[in-house]
Every structure is written in structure tokens, then in C-alpha cells.
């Protein structure tokens, strides 16, 4: 932890960055994002297992971006988000630093996309065994059971868009849900609007989501949104052998194709 604080002090003092986005004390045992703009504040930085938010979300917030060059305390998901955003032309190389604390508290500083790529390949980027197991649980359910499961969950959706705000890849300045000519998605939070909103979001994240899970954590009514994303992560990987957030220049699964992409339902 001290390593991280020292690193932040050093970077801020040398004006190598203008802001260090990291984790600080939240309510109870939780951790929240802190924006350290001077060496004196660096003591607020924390790093432990409770640090789970994907801070890359702030890369796409104009109010944070205007603070200046950013150093980002990064967990594995954050690094992949950075690469994914880079591949979507949203950030440039050398525009930010990633600070990666390891289990011992030592901090690795990654200054380029190439360095991040080299770090990311060594991570375990697959869905975890537990995640796969959970997915499977729903996959083997009957269709009707699945429908009821989601109907029950979506009936609680408030259309508050917290999932969208928490998602680092939902950076569009105009979301489809805000298009009203035509009105693609009904505004009220009724069953149809909620279903369409969630299908639309999952489709727009297909081949892009890096599985940080912040959508589910942000949802005030506890909809397991991560399941939708994980399902499509698994489909995209199985069918197209493609995984998001692995390189700063990449072929996106949904905007490329292979002539021999296999399916068994188009007849």
C-alpha cells in the first residue's frame, strides 16, 4: 500500500500526471474511487481485496478527463478495458499510466499500450470456473424457467441506467435509448421497455464487454446483468475465437467475420 502511495506522490510531485485515480475508504468496508490531485492527498489511497470497481470508467467521463493526464490504479479488468477503449479509438497511447499493485503491495507502472498488452496476456482472461458453472446452471434450465427468471428480475428494473453509468464501455454520447425518431425503446420502465433495454445493452456489449461486473454491482435492484454479458463473452469466444480487451489494435468480433463462421440454424 505504501508503495502505491509513494508512487502516486512521486508521479504527482514530478507532474508526470495531474491526477491519480485510485481506491479510497468508502462506507463501511467498501472502497470508492478517489481522485488524488496532489502529493499531500496520496495517503488516502488504499489497496486491498475490496477494491473491485473498474476505474477505467473514469477515463470516459469528461469531468475527470479534463483534470489532465491520469494514472489509474488498475485491477486485471481495468487493464483490459484500457486496451478495449484504445481499440475503439477512445484513448491514445501515452495518454495515461496504469499502476498495477500485486498481492505483496508492490506496484508495476505500465506506461504504454504495449506494456499493458504484455501484462494482460499473462493474466487469466477466461471466465472463471465459478462463472462458467453459474452460466451453465441457467443454460441447462428449461426455456420457460429461464423466461420466468428474467421476467422476475426485469420486472424490478427501474430504467435508472446505473448499469450504463457504471460501464466503462457505455461511453456513447447518445445512447440508442435516447433516440426518439424513431423511439427505439419505450421510455417507461414497463416489462417491454425493460426487456428491450437489456437486450439492446447486451447486444451492444457483445464482443466488447471485458467482464468487470460493475453493471451488476451498480444495479440498485440486484439484476444479475453480468450473466447476460458473460453468456455473450462465452458465445463470442466459442464461435469466433475472439476475446475483447486483449490488444490496442484488434479486430472486433462483431464488425469482422470469417467466411467459415459455423452455425447450425440458418437453413
Amino acid at each position, binding site marked *: 500500500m505504501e508503495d502505491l502511495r509513494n508512487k502516486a506522490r512521486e508521479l504527482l510531485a514530478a507532474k508526470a500526471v495531474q491526477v491519480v485515480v485510485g481506491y479510497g475508504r468508502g462506507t463501511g468496508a467498501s472502497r470508492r474511487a478517489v481522485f488524488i490531485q496532489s502529493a499531500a492527498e496520496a495517503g488516502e489511497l488504499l489497496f486491498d481485496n475490496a477494491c473491485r470497481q473498474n476505474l477505467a470508467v473514469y477515463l470516459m467521463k469528461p469531468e475527470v478527463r479534463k483534470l489532465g493526464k491520469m494514472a489509474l490504479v488498475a485491477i486485471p479488468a481495468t487493464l483490459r478495458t484500457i486496451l478495449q477503449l484504445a481499440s*475503439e479509438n*477512445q484513448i491514445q497511447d501515452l495518454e495515461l499510466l496504469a499502476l498495477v499493485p500485486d498481492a505483496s503491495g508492490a506496484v508495476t507502472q505500465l506506461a504504454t499500450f504495449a506494456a499493458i498488452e504484455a501484462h494482460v496476456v499473462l493474466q487469466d482472461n477466461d471466465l472463471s470456473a465459478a462463472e462458467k458453472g453459474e452460466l451453465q446452471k441457467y443454460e441447462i434450465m428449461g426455456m420457460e424457467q429461464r423466461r420466468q427468471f428474467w421476467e422476475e428480475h426485469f420486472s424490478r428494473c427501474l430504467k435508472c441506467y446505473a448499469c450504463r453509468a457504471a460501464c466503462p464501455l457505455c461511453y*456513447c*454520447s*447518445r445512447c*440508442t435509448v435516447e433516440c426518439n*425518431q424513431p423511439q427505439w425503446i419505450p421510455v417507461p420502465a414497463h416489462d417491454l421497455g425493460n426487456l428491450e433495454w437489456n437486450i439492446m445493452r447486451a447486444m451492444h456489449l457483445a464482443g466488447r464487454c471485458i467482464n468487470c461486473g460493475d453493471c451488476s454491482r451498480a444495479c440498485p435492484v440486484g439484476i444479475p446483468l453480468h450473466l447476460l454479458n458473460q453468456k455473450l463473452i462465452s458465445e463470442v469466444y466459442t464461435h469466433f475465437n475472439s476475446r475483447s480487451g486483449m490488444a490496442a489494435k484488434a479486430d472486433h468480433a*462483431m*464488425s*469482422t467475420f470469417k467466411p467459415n463462421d459455423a452455425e447450425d440454424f440458418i437453413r
Partner: protein
Amino acid sequence: MARIGVFVCHCGENISATVDVKKVAEAASRIPGVAHSVEYKYMCSDPGQQMIRNAIREKNLTGVVVAACSPRMHEPTFRRACAEAGLNPFLCEMANIREHCSWVHEKSEATTHKAFDIVRTLVAKVKRNKALLPIKVPVTKTALVLGGGIAGIQASLDIANSGHKVILVEKEPSIGGHMSQLSETFPTLDCSQCILTPRMVEVAQHPNITLHSYSELESMDGFIGNFKVRIRKKARSLDEKLCTGCGLCVQKCPSKKISSEFDAGLGLRPAIYVPFPQAVPNKPVIDREHCTYYRTGKCRLCEKICPTQAIRFDQEDEIIEADIGAVVVATGFDIKHGDFFPEYGYGKYKDVIDGLQFERLASASGPTLGEIRRPSDGQVPQTVVFVACAGSRDPAKGIEYCSKICCMYTAKHAMLYKHKVHHGKPFVFYMDIRAGGKMYEEFVRRAMEEDGVQYIRSRVSRIYERGGKLVVKGADTLLGSRPLEIEADLVVLATAGVAQAGAEQLAQRLHVSFDAHKFYAEAHPKLRPVETNTAGIFLAGACQAPKDIPESVAQASGAAAKVAILFSQSELVREPLIAVVDRQAPPLYSSCVGCFLCQPSCPYQAIEKEEIRDRDGQLIKTIAKVNPGLCQGCGTCVALCRTKSIDIQGFSHEQVYAEVLALLNRGEDNV
């Protein structure tokens, strides 16, 4: 408020027999926004069109729906009629109630109901149609011809003679292609070079043709009428302006034992060489791989003796850029080489040669000066076996197609051999004889009947050497499949015609498609045989499929005519059904977030990056822009865009959304 006119056609009885057209027209008149609704026996007839024109003028219509046949049939007719009455043609839509309704359903309520559903859907769409203007694109009236074989030569001359500029690019040091290697040509047996070289000279001297030999296409961007090309002119290692082509350097060059490409490996050439005496341009090239100076740093003999000091050892490749309006691809073909017929000993036995090698043996300008002498020992072969279909029509060799030219040239080879070696015995092993063409069958019969060429209907199972002879094994299938062995002195394999090495890479540079065998694909196998799927790029000759000379020349003239048609207009007019990225007022400028996920999905590379800058030149954002010249209007990017920032004219979000709702009788257009 929309004022839509609906015109329901009976199509004689084609529609009215199963659809109650009166009811449809009557119901359509109740759709909100419909100002006029009528039915008529033949909407496409003159009086029918006049009804539409009159209604547009009298009722001040803002859109027209013609409920009749398929838009693939009469959309242009009715759009023209609308335009004549002053209505933008893109405000006219067709409701297909014939092919998709009256013809496929029995007479019933349901059929009439469906016809009305279709009309209502198209009314909903047309209300949201926008007046569109055709896109006009200027045309650069210079053609690029790739490949200087007979097809490229013919295409270049025809285009040049129609008064347009031509840039002809040939990768070898001389134009002429495979035809210049041939001895005589079927079915007339006139000398190939005698008929070809005058054309080559004409190319060289034509004021409208710029020839870049020893050059290749490096890259190409742009679109029909407006291509930008970069041509790599490989270093010849001499100053072409100074070189007079005297040939002194070629005579004096000390490294003379290099296998000659022109002689198909049967002859030798020096390191500084012209491929053949009638080469155009008649300027040598230094083969740097074999030149003593490039290998050891010593020699420079050619430099010393050159009377005009034209040798340039330090010359580098040159990149030439040009603006081009159309491209003719005439890059030709090759024949199958290599370790392809181990059972025939091809590549193993010196006296098992391919068709092109035989052409060089038979050619008066060839390594044997036209005498048929076998490569191994220079003896005149007394028995020669010609094997047709060596690889062609053989799925086991991966070549299912017929190479088309081999039957004829094999007959020619056997004849030429017999004409030169009177007592010689030529045998032809064949599967079928395909001699379709003017005077072709007669030619083959002449080989058999007048020149006594023995035709044996048999595949060859194996060829091997035994006691200095090549044993050819087969089975005469016309004589009870009796096993058969012929001891030959020379075997000529008519190896399959295949695509040029590098055909795939060139196709990618040009964005044209190719078939499983890397031959370039025509836009339509019957009706558009010289066009490719990329507008402005045409095909000529054997790069599309193996072809003989008359066919290649005919196609080349066809491609040239297509180029001339294109160049006869100063502007190209295209349908404006293309994608557009939205623009908005500052500070947003566009809802596009510049993720460019659309970019790789475009088959035409039409999506470009556009930088939005403020007055001081500061970059505000980078957004997508669709090049209207390149976009063909597939709409793949439209469906992909998450912010719905790209829309496609004619099939816009609003239009198709309204169609879906109207078809199901929902939304604001329901009745």
C-alpha cells in the same frame, strides 16, 4: 401533412383475379395521409402513367405508392413518371402485390387483406421518404491496364484509339506475354510473333499509351472514375532515356549461363538481357540476383562498354502515382509447374516437358532454332507422347475445371512435330477432345487424318525411364481398355492452366473477388462477363479463366468498350441510396463517438475518418464519414452503429421502423 397517392394496378387479371383491388384502393384511401387512391387495369401503360402524373399535379401529392408488380420490374418506370410530373423520383415506392401476393395465394379475403397490409406498409414508408438527388461523380479519363499480354495490348490499343489515355503496366521487362513465347497459333498455324509484334510496336508508339514495363501495381485507392494508383517501376539498372538498345552490353556480359524465363528454362541468357529480340521496350534489364557486380562487387563490364553511359548500378525502384478512371485487369495465367505429377516424372526427367517448353522448342526463335530436339541430349525424338489433361479435370489434383486451350494446342504441337520430323511418331493421350470453335474441330481432324497423329483415348497412369526411353503407360479405352505401353523419346504434358502466382494479392489490392482457383470473378457469369463486382474494374483474358487468343482478344475489346462507355460521360450518375453519418449542431457536431467499429465491416472501405476542428484548428473530435463515391449502400454499418449515427438513404431507420409497425397495423399509420 403528407399527401400520398395510392395507385392500385389490376395487371390485367394478374392481380385482380385473386385480390379485390377495389377494396384495397378503397381501404387505402382511409389511411391517414392518403390524399388519393385509385385502381386501374394497367398502371404501367401510358394512360396508367398519365393518371399518376395528373394526380401528382392536380392533388399536389407528396408521395406515390404504386401497388403492382415487383419493384425489380417497374420501379424505374414509375419513378420516371413521377419525375416527369415534378415529383422527386425517390418519393415513389412500389407495393409488390403481384409476385408477393396475387400470384402466390388463392383468391380469398386473406389475400386481399395481405395486399392491403403491403400497401399500408409502403404508405408508411413513403411518408418518411426524402427527396434525394442522384450522386454525380467526376470521371478521370485515363485507364490503367494491368498486364501487357495480348489481352492487355488489345485493351490498351482499343481504349487509346477511342481517344483516351492509357497507362499500361507490365511486370516483365517486355510486353508480349505468353503469346510472344508461342511458335505457331491454332487453327491457322500462323506465326505467333509475326501477328503479335506489330501490335507491340503500335503500343510503344501510340501517343495515348504510356507503357511502364518491369513495373507492378503497388496500391490502389478510390472508386470508379476516381482511382489513385501507385505503380512500382522496378530498377532496370539503366537509364532508359540514354539506352539506345544497341545490345552491346548483352553480347559482352560475362555471366551468360542463366536459365531463360522466356525460353521456359530451356535456353540461357546473360545477366543483362532483353527477354527476346523483338522485346518492347527493347531495353535491357540487369538481373541483380545473377549479375557478377551485384554478387561480388566486381565486373562493371557493361558500364565500361556502353556507348551512351546508360548503366546505373545504383538505380532504385521508382514509385509513380497516377489518377485513373477505370482499370482493365489482364494479368493472364500460368501453367501448372512443380512437383505436381510425380507419377509422370515431371521435374525429374529432363525429357518430360510442358506445353510452353514445347512451344519454345518449336519456335524459330527458340533455343533449338525451331528444330525439335529433346532437352536431355539434343537428339531429335522419334516418338513423342503428348498428354492432354495433365491435371485438368482431375479432382484428385484439385483442379476440377477444363483448361480449355490444351486440346487445341496439343493437336497443334503434334502437327508441328510431324511437320518438322516427317518420320516421327506423335501420340496424343486424351480424355475427350473439346474442339468447339471456328475451324477448331477441322483442325484436330487434320492432325489425325492428314498428319497421322495417333490419338489414344486414355489417361496416362505412369511415365518412367527405362533404358533411355520414357515408358508411357495407359489403357486404350476405345479398344477394350487394353493396357498399353509406349516407349517415347519425349513427353509433352499439357499441364493445367492456373492463376498467376500473386493473383490473390493483386485481387486484394484491387478489391476484386476471385474464385476457388484464384481466377478473378466476373460480376455475372453470363450477362456481365467483363465487369468485376467493383465498379470501374474490368477483366480481360485468362486472368478470369483459361482462354485462347481469339477469346482473350474479344474480351479485351469488350472491356475496352466498357471503359469507353464510362469515359463517354464527364460525370457518373449514381443512385443516392448510400449511408450517411449524422451531423448535429455544436457542441456535439455528430452523435458518432468515433469508435470506428463500423470501419472494418464496410466491404468497400468507404468509411473514412473525419476530424472536426474549431476555428483555431484545434481537434475537437474524430468521427466517421462515408465516402459517397465508394459506398454501395449495403447498410451493414447502419445496423452495427450503437449510437444510430449512421443511416442509409432509402432504407432509413425511420422508414423501416415505420414499415414494421405498419405491417402489423400498429403505430400512427394504422387504420
